[in-house]
């Protein structure tokens, strides 16, 4: 989607070297299917001979013209070619996860459970690694406290995911683990994930 938009923009795109060249483009933290976001970051490689030729306002305008409906380019910034990759610059990511038609008691009871969950020092989960082997991982360092509020039958959880060794876990992992520990199996939980903010560590721009 994004790479085709970039091609439509006719900006001087850079390509990777090698047998199968592709656009130089990387998202700070790619979104999974069905997720929505208020804002994200993407690095795009452009070829300019001289930094002084770079007009970010022009690039902003060109990019906005080719975006699908509903996607707004908020800001364009020129970075030095040697700046760190976005993935390494993530400070934290805030999420809201809506769970539909939940049968919890009152909000007070839920908050009590959340307190217990948040005060755990270790939360070990079993997950499959890339090779398909099951490994045990402690996910407690990967997020700050989970909070919740109710909206009718829906419960909306808020949480902040923190990078550990430059990688971020999926926020759903935390919520599913929470529900598991509350013995909430119900029928299949219907969730919608919304990214509220992706915060970067400030880097020098030109």
């Amino acid at each position, binding site marked *: 989607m994004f*790479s085709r938009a*970039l*091609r*439509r923009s006719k900006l001087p795109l850079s390509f990777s070297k090698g*047998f199968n*060249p*592709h656009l130089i483009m990387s998202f700070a933290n790619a979104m999974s299917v*069905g997720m929505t976001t208020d804002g994200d970051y993407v690095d795009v490689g452009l070829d300019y001979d001289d930094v002084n030729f770079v007009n970010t306002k022009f690039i902003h305008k060109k990019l906005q013209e080719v975006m*699908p409906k509903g996607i707004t380019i908020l800001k364009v910034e020129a970075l030095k070619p040697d700046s760190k990759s976005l993935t390494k610059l993530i400070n934290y990511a805030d999420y809201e996860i809506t769970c539909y038609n939940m049968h919890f008691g009152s909000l007070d009871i839920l908050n009590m459970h959340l307190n217990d969950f948040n005060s755990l020092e270790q939360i070990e989960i079993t997950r499959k690694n890339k090779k398909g082997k099951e490994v045990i991982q402690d996910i407690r360092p990967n997020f700050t406290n989970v909070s919740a509020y109710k909206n009718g039958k829906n419960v909306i959880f808020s949480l902040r995911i923190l990078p550990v060794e430059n990688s971020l876990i999926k926020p759903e992992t935390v919520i599913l683990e929470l529900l598991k520990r509350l013995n909430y199996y119900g029928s299949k939980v219907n*969730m919608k994930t919304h990214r509220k903010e992706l915060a970067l560590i400030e880097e020098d721009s030109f």
Partner: protein
Amino acid sequence: MKLNNFKHEVDNILNDVKKPITYTGNEVNSVHKDLKEDTIRFALAFPDIYEVGMSHIGTKILYGLLNSDEDVWCERVFAPWVDMEEQMIEKGIPLYALESMDPIKNFDFVGFSLQYEMSYTNILNMLSLSHIALESKDRQEKDPFIIAGGPCTYNPEPLADFIDIFVIGESEKVIPKLVDLYKEWKKSDQSRESFLKEAAELEGIYVPRFYNVEYNGDGTIKSFSPSIPQAKPVIKKQYIDNLDDEYYPDKFVVPYQQTVHDRISYEIFRGCPHGCRFCQAGQIYKPVREKSLDRILNDIDVLLSNTGYEEISLASLSSGDYSKIEWLIRELMNRYDKYKIGVSLPSLRIDSLSIDMLKEMEKVKRSSITLAPEAGTQRLRDVINKNVTEEDLMNTVSLAFNEGWNKVKLYFMTGLPTETDKDIEGIADLANKVVEEYYKVPKNKRKRGVQVTVSTSCFVPKPFTAFQWVGQVPTEEFNRKQRHLKQSIKNKRVRYNWHESNLSYLEAVFARGDRRLGKVLKRAWELGCRFDSWNEQFDYSKWEEAFVDTNINPDFYASRQRDFSEILPWDFIDIGVSKDYLRLEWEKSLIGKTSTNCKIGCEHCGMMGFIQEKNINSNLCFNKDLKSYGQSTDKI
């Protein structure tokens, strides 16, 4: 007309389906219009999932063409996959068009594209999901007109109960006229029936309800005739004379989701000069019509800049036959290599020229090449008029191996007329020889190992081919042939894949079926059949049940050898190619006599007369350019 759309309801179920993005539209270049009171709403319906339908060129052409009329808003609709279908039924969401999310039940037209027989149950399923009456006779005044076009409409009869209007031939030529007629009719205060009658008068329009069919005691057709004066006894297929003067989209909708052919497909010519006797496309798309280089290059440039695609595919039935193909590829490479835009050819014949072109285009990208000798022995290749020799094949693979390819896919058909076990063993032999050819390449030029994949499909006799009268080989015999081939392949470097014979049997039933099969289709759908061309959904036992329930013997359609005097269900369609020619081709096939291709000589198929009837200035059925080019590349 303003309608209530289902955007909100759809949003709520998207979380529960596998590919939500294929149900929401809003892609770049999708067309949204402000509705006026009299805007004509047209739903282009593709009876398969989004990823398949979005790869279809015909749909892209009609979408652009219809939307170029400011009085028409044409939208797309695809078959929802079973998970989405379940959600839609549960939540009471009717099938809606992707752009507006309005239910298509309230549209003026729903036009289905008929690409393969095994998508027929999806049409019924989509009508049902739309809450539109399945059968034409049950539709009310306000219901949309259900129309259908595409290659399968060259025998429209099995769908006669369900479709109001068939377009016979190339739809670009006919649908605008149909829409114009509709505009006039809509202003008048006349009945649905009256529109159908007026439509029946248009060239290339077939309205099945205005025809009577009588049958003989043995089940064959006794007579087939119009029941009203407006309906034509013979429907002439319609086609575009000059593609250069014709509309081609300047933008394609760019999907978010990867599709089957996720690239710009640009049609460089229509028709095919080769007269392979099993091939329907080669006959129905006659005559060969090329686009000019200028038109092709200009259009591709505009398409690339409007879509941002990174690959161009030069589409046609046999792209290597384009008269200036080498020039075209070189020019495209010159223009777009710096933007890392690739060029590909979807259909290549077995000749050395193809490999040279591949070398130029693909660089190191793909490791396998696909070739279709179709039959295992020269005798059988002559029967089907494939006109490639073992030598051609060996030269081609040798060249490919020398250029660094090490994987070859070979396509064959089993169950071709006159086939014996010798021909089956010939497939294994040919595959062995291809492997041997690899080891002739100097060791230092070889890659790891060689992999030859043999795929066989089961031959399905099709209308308007030399084989339209022959009975299909029984299913058990297909299975035996497959086992025999499996045993004959002893080389470890050769892999073997084969097609499900039950599916090919059903395809043979519907390809040459008549309107009595409507009952079977309906029953099969009631029993839960849809997505029959998807392995995981196909359930042959339900089809068997449907034939039993409707008291129809499928062998009558699939396996029966027809008499030449028999009235065939599709005889009322004139594709320009004569029945005498097809019969002669059949007789030549039995003695293994080949026919030449249109570039070299004329076999008097009848197309010339068909063209001259329309346009007295033309004395050729393909571009003049082709003629001078022909001899140099073809080595028959």
